[in-house]
């Protein structure tokens, strides 16, 4: 655990990528294999399920620290991180000594899940008391998740590739899927993978960047495929050896959630892997994202739900065909094979469609097509270089997303809460309201879009203009106006305003506007299609 805690400290202390990679590499070389494997799991969001609730953690820590519960809660909101709050508030013990490996501790935590509350409490409090503040922080994070160490999967893979002297791409692929250190060893996962385990393994997803302004000056439309950007859930369908698997981008196995794709498995040849978008599909057309969400939220997929909200796979790439990995081939090649495959199985009864290429000889054609996004039920366009291989992760240059312009409205800041992580102890989480007759009615919360300097300025405003306090929430004097952008808008019975907006964020601070110039709820409702 000491080695792991020291790694966490080093990663946390630097903002430099090279230092992080070096620290990770060094750790992978030094740490016992099982510890290294657990570290990889933790850093790729594969932590074991939490044996205790955060409510229990709060109650026990407050009691051990002899701090009243209300003060613990307030402090937690100021620190902005539960693991860190407990690490700091716990009485420090300079003689604390814990000699237990990371994997042993995690195995204890896994076993703990089935124990009684009393046993859990005794174990956790004993661990806390034997740890330094740093170890306590790392230990808590193992349970709560969200290390926020600025270590992406890509960065970790790079360090691992240096430590093991294996290619990054190969490792990225081996690290995919739903493995767990409980069932697989370091050797089996990374060094000598068992072919049987490869059957369900997805390829790493290739991700696009938001289009940069200089793009159109530098690129010719001839070199690019233009498609609509479908507003659903990214997915990978794998058909191998008589079985099929459906993976989400978050590497979650979703096969059981989408029995709809069974007919495809019966038709498509073995050794086929498709990349595309899972979409709700009602009345013969692509439905709103909220319907897909509704379906995703259910644990069990009943026949009724399947009939009510059927899904369809909008396919746009072919990653494997006849068992051959095609990712290094140019997109034109993959596309040709995909089109052939689709034509052979172009049956309206089958739950898939081919994402069409928009004919585009000049960029103006693309611009016109982008304006049809609402009509086509897409979020905008995707631009893909014809000659591009299928990459790993987010990489600039070959795939770009060119989203439709968001809706915007001017709203008044009415409440503020302290943020988390980098923004802890600053009021950065805001609630915005619109006019309804003479009253301000809440319509959205937004957390992002301001610069650091603006954030500090608003923070100061909040502290000086608090009119009421509700626990961690401050009511502020209505004075500041912000332009809020959002992606989608629909009627909602769950919101006081009667309207739900998707992905609201701050576009800019309208210092030129006073609150009487902010928009009204009426204005907002006119945007609903």
């Amino acid at each position, binding site marked *: 655990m000491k080695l792991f805690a020291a790694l966490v400290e080093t990663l946390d202390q630097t903002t430099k990528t090279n230092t992080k990679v070096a620290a990770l590499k060094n750790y992978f070389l030094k740490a016992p294999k099982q510890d290294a494997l657990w570290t990889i799991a933790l850093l790729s969001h594969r932590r074991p399920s939490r044996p205790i609730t955060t409510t229990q953690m709060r109650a026990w820590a407050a009691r051990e620290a002899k701090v009243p519960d209300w003060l613990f809660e307030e402090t937690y909101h100021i620190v902005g991180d539960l693991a860190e709050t407990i690490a700091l508030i716990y009485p420090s013990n300079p003689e604390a000594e814990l000699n237990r490996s990371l994997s042993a501790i995690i195995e204890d935590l896994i076993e703990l899940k089935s124990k009684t509350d009393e046993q859990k409490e005794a174990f956790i409090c004993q661990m806390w008391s034997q740890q330094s503040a740093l170890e306590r922080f790392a230990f808590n994070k193992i349970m709560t998740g969200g290390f926020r160490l600025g270590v992406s999967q890509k960065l970790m893979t790079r360090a691992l590739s240096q430590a093991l002297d294996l290619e990054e791409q190969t490792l990225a692929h081996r690290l995919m899927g739903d493995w767990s250190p409980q069932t697989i060893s370091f050797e089996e996962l990374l060094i000598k993978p068992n072919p049987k385990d490869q059957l369900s393994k997805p390829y790493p997803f290739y991700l696009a960047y938001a289009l940069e302004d200089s793009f159109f000056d530098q690129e010719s439309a001839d070199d690019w495929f233009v498609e609509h950007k479908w507003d659903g859930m990214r997915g990978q369908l794998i058909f191998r050896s008589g079985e099929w698997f459906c993976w989400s981008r978050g590497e979650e196995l979703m096969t059981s959630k989408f029995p709809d794709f069974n007919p495809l498995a019966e038709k498509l040849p073995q050794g086929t892997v498709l990349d595309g978008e899972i979409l709700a599909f009602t009345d013969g057309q692509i439905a709103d994202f909220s319907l897909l969400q509704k379906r995703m939220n259910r644990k069990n997929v009943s026949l009724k739900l399947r009939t009510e909200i059927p899904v369809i796979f909008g396919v746009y790439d072919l990653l494997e065909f006849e068992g051959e990995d095609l990712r290094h081939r140019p997109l034109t090649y993959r596309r040709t094979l995909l089109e052939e495959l689709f034509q052979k199985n172009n049956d309206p009864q089958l739950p898939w469609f081919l994402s069409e290429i928009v004919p585009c000889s000049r960029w103006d054609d693309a611009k016109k097509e982008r304006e049809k996004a609402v009509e086509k039920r897409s979020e905008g366009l995707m631009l893909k270089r014809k000659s591009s291989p299928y990459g790993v992760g987010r990489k600039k240059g070959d795939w770009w997303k060119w989203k439709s312009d968001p809706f915007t409205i001017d709203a008044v800041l009415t409440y503020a809460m302290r943020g988390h992580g980098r923004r802890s102890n600053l009021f950065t989480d805001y609630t915005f309201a619109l006019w309804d007759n003479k009253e301000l009615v809440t319509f959205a919360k937004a957390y992002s879009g301001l610069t650091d300097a603006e954030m500090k300025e608003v*923070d100061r405003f909040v502290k000086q203009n608090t009119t009421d306090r509700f626990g961690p929430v401050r009511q502020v004097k209505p004075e500041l106006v912000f332009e809020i952008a959002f992606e989608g808008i629909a009627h909602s019975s769950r919101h006081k305003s009667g309207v739900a907006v998707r992905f609201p964020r701050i576009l800019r601070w309208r210092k030129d506007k006073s609150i009487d110039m902010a928009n009204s709820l009426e204005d907002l409702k006119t945007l609903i299609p």
Partner: protein
Amino acid sequence: MYLEAVKKKKPPLLQFSSRGIYCAVADVYLDPWRPVPKALITHGHADHARWGHGQYICTEASLPILKHRLGNIQLSGRPYGDRFLVNGVQFSFHPAGHVLGSAQIRVEYQGEVWVFTGDYKLENDGVSTPFEPIRCHTFISECTFGLPVFDWQNPTEIHSQINHWWAAQNSDKRSAVLMGYSLGKAQRLLKHLDPNIGPIYTHSSITAMTEVTSAQVDFPKTLALNKEVDKNDLKGALILAPPAAAGGAWMKKLSNPSTGYASGWMSFRGARRRRGFDRGFVLSDHADWKGLLKAIKATGCEKVITTHGYTHLFAQYLREQGYDAITEKTAFEAETPAEETSTTL
């Protein structure tokens, strides 16, 4: 406070007015934030010692600092513990341990004693005269770090971490840039740097303040960081600079420096990451949670007025502990991790 005053048919000894903390009987203000005829000043930080008062009274140790910061003002100094009368009210300054020359102000009138802390800490920092608890009826306390998550480590341990970090940069021929506020933190850091590691340079505002205080404290030898310094001389050196100077043109002279920041706010990962410094050293000139509680207990007071910091939470906690505690608004801002403001760290 108002109700109690009505009951006793006399105004409280110290009142919170729009200009500052006011003693009506003596007609003087303590650390006023708007111009007043007569001001008693706890210490030299900008939010406590402001421009424009008619007459300033501070500790003897603060005299050179106030002169340096405020220039030609009407200023007199008193030794710690020296009791003096203003219109029949007895005043005295007592060590607050915050920065060189800092004081608590004790006010006594007709047997009633109030103490205003200004800013304070309990640890001996080796530069300022250590904090002394003063018994009183009413204690006006700062609470910049009035949350149970603030629990300072032994400062000796922090100073050795700083020297250790510098030595590591020195052996890599890199510069170590250490940030700390120019009055207080800078002198405290300087005092405990190990000059055997390498040369120590100071940024201009710190150079000036160090000079002002050098008559009272023995510091390791320092060099002024100015345009004439050869950049090769800065390799392996430690450069002491105020946080406000971070990212300034002078930093371009340094190749691949490691940056460190010494402040109580460095307890929080979020604050550390926001600043983007390589190292955060948790070192504060304010009392931590236990320090505040210990200081309050030692005064034997019944009533506490919390002024700047986590005032509401701290007062509520004190009430639960049986104190008569309230919060008053002042212009001593401390709720922000005082990164960009002029307040102390």
